[in-house]
Structure formats: C-alpha cells, structure tokens
C-alpha cells in the first residue's frame, strides 16, 4: 500500500511537470455530430502546416461546453464543437469561470432524417404526423392532451400504412435527439391550433394562459414551467415541455449514439424508421432512404435552401484567451472557415456538411477571422 501511495505521488509529480509546460497541440472537444467534420479539418491542418494536428474528442455538445467553460489554462480545451447554439446558462457559467471572450463560428447545417430501409415504401410525413406518432402527449378526441394512444401510422394519418410505429433514435443525451425534438416534434405540435395559440401568449397574459392550459388539460406541465421560470413563465415555456417530450411506451426505441447501428437495424427491420444525421444517409444511400417531410425529401439542396425543415446549425466555439498560448489556434480557425473547407465546393461539403448561404458565409467568415466576441 505504501508503495502504491509512493508510486502515485511520484507519478503525480512527473505529470505535474509535464503539465506545467505548455501544450503544443490544440485540444478540441464537443459534439459527436461535428466530430466527423472537425476531424477532417484537424487532419488536413496537421498535414498542410507545421503545427501538430489538433486532438479531437467526441464528448457531446453539452459535455464539450462543460469542459470548455471550466476555466482558462492548458488543462482545459481550446475549442468545443456544438450541434446547437451555446445556452445562456452555459455562457454565464463560462463567464463565471473566467472564460470571458469566446468566438462563435457557425460552420454550416446538418439535416436530421427519418429514414427506413431501401426496398420498403418511402414514408411521406408531415411534422404534425411525426408529433402525433412520437410525442408523449397528443390531443385526444375532446381536444385535451392525453397519453399518446396511436399504435400504427394509420392511427396518425389515414393516408399512411397500417404498420406499427417503431422509431429507432438516439438517447436524451444526444444533440441529435434535442434537435429532432425541437424541430420535428415541437414544430409539429405548433400545428395544433390550441398549442399555437398558447405559444403566442406572454407572461402577463396569465388569464388567457390559464384558460388554454385548462382546455388542453396540461395543468401539471404548466406547474412545471412555473416552477422553472417563476413569474416569467410564458406560453412558450409550457409548449417546450409538452412539445419536446418523447413517448416512453416503446414506440420510440433508444438505440444508442452509434448511427451505423441504427442503419443496420433498419435494414433488418423494414417496418422501422430511424433518426440520424444527413451525412449517414448520404454515405449509406444504398441501404436506407430518407422519409419525405412536409413535401421535401432530405436532399442536399433541400436542406441547403431551407425547404427541408428538420435541420440544425453546427457551431464551434474558440477560447480567445488561449490564442497565442497554444500554437495554431488562429490558423486552425482560419483554415476551418476558408472557402476550401466550408465554401460551397469545400471538402467538408463532400463529407455531407450543408454549407451556409453566400451572405451568411461572408458575415461569418469575416467575423470569425476578426475574432469577434460572442455576446448573448
């Protein structure tokens, strides 16, 4: 035991020495959705310049921001990738821990697809169908929200086949799941008249809110919203709660974060649908096909021009305090935002990233190169 303790102390001192010397490679953490893109840039950056290739870890968007906001210093990452925008809570956390100046870079978009095996009939869905099929609470016959009773797609929409609702998707820790819940489920929920009305109500319209809440029978969700936001609770907050909760009775199957696994399961079960990022559909287009959502198939062009609605922005955040301390951060950022990388013909586009529009690209790249500070 003594030896163990001695060993640990000795090892700790060795490591402390190595830690005190500055890092010579950039440390990148964050979203597993941005990971396949960031790694390509990191690799090319390492080969094309004299800097070492950055180390990229896939920790998930939330996990990455947590590490990123822990503080300033070589023990913390320099850059975090995110498949959603930084939340105000996370931003405050960063500020509190001394990470004052952050540069936000929007690199492009990623479509989220609902796919099934090739050979099965392609599904034609609306966002409302998706909401009715997968949300925990849906409007019942009397207009009140009830636990989702729909068993087959035909229960949702008479035009759909009478197959069982079986959707394989990522677990709640995933950014893909968050985005899917927000864009597809909540997007569909808003097409329910009463919910749309509720969403428009401000915090000071307490009476109207109470009336709609009563009509929908969602007093408990409203109570949760009030508990979270206090007096400032608006209609929007309660819509977030009811719109984004996924049913838990087995129709939505959590299939882990491995998208290849979902693809394989879809091939084995032609009746099931799976949720994953567009780049996986792109790479596996011989095995699976994307469902048409609101009249648009998930194609490159439809996502880029915004007509395919279930898509989300991809970001990375740079810790300004580390520029100059860790070599190569500025150069990595410049490489990442260059036309060669994420321009309309860039190599990340070949990997399945959906590029920004021309104006958005110019805005973003000039802001990023000038290291404009993020303010929320």
């Amino acid at each position, binding site marked *: 035991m003594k030896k163990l303790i001695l060993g640990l102390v000795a*090892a700790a001192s060795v490591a402390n020495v190595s830690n005190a010397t500055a890092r010579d*490679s950039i*440390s990148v953490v964050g979203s597993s959705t941005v990971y396949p893109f960031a790694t390509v840039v*990191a*690799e090319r950056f390492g080969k094309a310049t004299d800097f*070492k290739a950055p*180390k990229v*870890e896939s920790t998930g968007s939330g996990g990455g921001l947590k590490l990123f906001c822990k503080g300033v210093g070589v023990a913390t990452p320099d850059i975090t990738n995110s498949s959603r925008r930084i939340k105000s809570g996370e931003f405050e956390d960063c500020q509190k821990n001394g990470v004052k100046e952050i540069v936000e870079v929007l690199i492009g978009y990623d479509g989220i697809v609902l796919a099934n095996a090739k050979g099965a009939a392609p599904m034609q869905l609306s966002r409302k169908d998706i909401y009715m099929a997968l949300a925990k609470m849906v409007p019942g016959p009397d207009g009140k929200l009830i636990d989702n009773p729909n068993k087959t797609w035909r229960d949702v929409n008479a035009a759909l086949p009478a197959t069982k609702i079986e959707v394989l998707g990522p677990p709640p820790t995933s950014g893909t799941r968050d985005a899917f819940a927000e864009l597809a489920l909540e997007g569909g929920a808003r097409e329910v008249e009463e919910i749309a009305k509720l969403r428009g109500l401000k915090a000071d319209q307490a009476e109207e809110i109470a009336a709609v809440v009563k009509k929908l029978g969602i007093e408990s969700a409203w109570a949760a919203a009030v508990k979270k936001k206090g007096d400032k609770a608006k209609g929007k907050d309660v819509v977030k709660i009811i719109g984004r909760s996924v049913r838990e009775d087995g129709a939505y199957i959590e299939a882990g974060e491995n998208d290849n696994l979902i693809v394989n399961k879809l091939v084995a079960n032609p009746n099931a649908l799976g949720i994953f990022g567009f780049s996986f559909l792109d790479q*596996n287009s011989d095995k699976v096909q994307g469902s048409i959502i609101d009249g648009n198939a998930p194609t490159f062009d439809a996502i880029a021009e915004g007509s395919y609605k279930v898509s989300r922005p991809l970001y990375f955040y740079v810790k300004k305090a580390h520029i100059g301390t860790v070599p190569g951060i500025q150069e990595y950022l410049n490489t990442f935002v260059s036309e060669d990388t994420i321009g309309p013909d860039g190599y990340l586009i070949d990997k399945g990233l959906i590029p920004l529009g021309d104006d958005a690209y110019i805005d973003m790249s000039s802001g990023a190169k000038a290291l404009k500070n993020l303010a929320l």
Partner: protein
Amino acid sequence: MTDSSNTASNDSMPTPVEVDQARAELAKRRAASLKKRNAAEKRFQWAGRLSIAFGIACVLFLFTDIFSKGISAFTQTYIDVEITFDAEQLGLTPQSTEKEIKAASFGSFFKKSLRAQYPEITERKAKRQLYALFTSDMPLILRNMVVADPSLIGTTQTISMIADDDFDTYYKHSYGKNLGPDEKISRLNEMQENLVHQLVRSGAVKKKFNSILFTNSDSREPELAGIKGAIMGSILTLFVTLILSFPIAVATAIYLEEFAPTNKITDFIEVNINNLAAVPSVIFGLLGLAVFINFFGMPRSVPLIGGFVLTLMTLPTIIISSRAAIKAVPPSIREAALGMGASKVQTVVHHVLPLAMPGMLTGTIIGMAQALGETAPLLMIGMVAFIVDAPSGITDPATVLPVQIFLWSDSPERAFVEKTSAAIMVLLTFLICMNSLAVWLRKRLERRW
C-alpha cells in the same frame, strides 16, 4: 438397494426355485437400473458436448464474420499513373531546396497532370469527379517524393497512386460482378464507373498488400487510416500499467501471504481485493477522472493516465493469482530454508519467489491482456479521441487499439466497416498471442510437487 426381502410368510426357508426367482428378479432390476444410469451419463456427456459445440459455433461465427468482413482491408487498390514532374510547371529545378519544394503548388500540378491524361473531360463537375477517384493526399505524397529525391524534377515517372475509398470499395466488392442495383456497393456515378472500367482495362489498377494500415495513424480518409498510432498508444499504456501494477501486486501478495498475521484487518483487506476484482471497469475510469485529472490536474488523453487507471483495474487480478502461486509453493521448502538458518526475507526472495514466479507471470499476462482490450475506463479520461500523430512518449495524446475500433465503427464512411474488422483481427491476434504465452509459460515453467 437391498432386495433380499424374502417371502417369509411360511416361517420356512425359501425353496431353491424361489431363490432362483428372486435372483432373476434382482438381475433384471440391476440391468434396468444400470441402463438408466448409463443413459443418464450419456445424456450428461451429450449436454457437455453440445455446450462445447455451441461455444465453438459462436466463436467460429464471430471469427468468420470478422474475417470475411475484414480480410479485404488488408489489400488496397492502387492506380498506376504516368506523371511528368515538369520543372516549369512546378517552378522547381533539381537543385531546389527543400523549402522551395514545400512551397510549390503540388495541388494544382496534380490536377493538371490528371487533366492532361483525360483531355476529353472539360466540365468542372466532371473534373472534380475525376480527382475524387484518387486519395485527397496525393499532392502531399507527390511533394514528399520530390522532397526525398529532388532529381525527380524534369523526369517522367509511373507512380502507384492510392485509390480513394469509394473507388477501392467499388473495385473490391462490386466491379465486374453482375449485381442488381440493390446489391451493388458503390458511391461512384456512371462517369466514374466508366473511368474505373477504362483504367482496369488498361491494366493500371492493381491490388496490393495494404501496408498503410500498419504504417499510418488514424485518418478520416479510410484509404489513409492505419493503426500505428493506436498500437503505439496501447504499448505505452500497457508499459505504464506493467511497470506500476507488477511490483505493487507482487509486494502486496508476498506481504499478505508470507508476513501479515491473520486477523480481522487482513481478512478485511482480502475481502476488498476480491471485491475490487469484480468492480466494473468504467468505475475505475471515473475514479481516474476524479483523482488524476480533476484533483492532480494531469493532462487528458495521455497514456500515463491510461496506465494509472488500468493499473487500478489489473491490480486485483495479479494480486489474486500471485497469492495463489505463493500458496502453491510447499511449506517444506520454507521450513528447509528456515532450518538452514535463512531469514524470513531470504526464504521468500531466494526460494518462494522464484518458485512462484511462473504463476505470477501467468496472472500478469492475463491481467495485461484484459487491460489491452479495455475501452470503458479510457472513455472517461479522454483517450477516446481523434489523434493523427502517433504518440512518442507517455505524455503525448494517444488512443489505444480497442478505442480505435470503437471510433472506426462509428464513422459514416462505408470503407471503415472493413477497417474496423481488420483492426479487430489485429487486436485478437495480440490477445491470442498473450494468452498462448501465458499457457506456454505455465506449461513450461510450472513445477509440480
């Protein structure tokens, strides 16, 4: 089983006929019972055989599945292309310095050379599709060739170019086979497939042994990805694990077996060591994260920390097997040494330890093999990362072989499926070698008393 219950109703001796009858009955019952017992034994044996057959079938299934998927990763498609290192176009002479060569624009040179071979391709999109047949690193490879040998400038060379993963997959799995549209694995378009066909007919396309798999580290381009970095990371991590865990475990085992008094404290320690052996490995990862990284502030993703965490994990395994090995040394050897006047330490170091060493080494190798296959604890300490450069020391960021398998299995590119299986094959080879070594050591060095 006594069955001499006579028919003692008449108070008389049984007649010989009766005795014979009883005997015959007995023999019949014995025969029946024997048949039953034999049948039971047969059933039991068959159950055992079936279990073994089931086990072997599972292993065979696993191996054939991995083997059939992974074997194609050991070859790589190359395309022979004639390239003229035009001095004027590159702006270089054979006397150019390394710096000048590095600054030259090999990207556009490579594209121009390709276009010169296919003057009929003029449309911009088609040109891009032509370039896409070759690995994106080709300009860099050409540049490095010229850096290594500047006299190439001005000459024409036939260069074996690495095919892109889409070309490679198509050529290996679908080319020249009459497959339906659903079976065909191809991300190439019609024009590209025609180009491939032309190239194959001209004899320029060759499949060679994929040495890249062993000489490159991780890459996002499947055709350039290799396991060198992961193997280096595994070696460094296991080195740290071995250096720390072997002496600590052996010292613990010797003290507990030979010196410690048997009391409540040692009982408590023993129970805890056994408990520790049953703790899921991910918990050691969490401990490592909390203690080494958060408390001591050590860097993430380095083999040093990986080694620490795996040491915690392998310690109980080695301690338990070392104690068993020490216990197996007969007491007469200790008594003889003590009787000759040796001290307790001398007895242990000169006699018990050498005799127990084979058993200890076996336990250590098995513990190391376990550590080699571990991913979960390393996930916590940031060793699951994309790292391009192979590590050269224990404080360089690194990943290990099983993590590499995990990362590749999660990659969208189709060509990583075969790479994943190939990496599994390499890992299995290592594990089988280590376990065979353990068996061999035990057979070879173990002494029986």
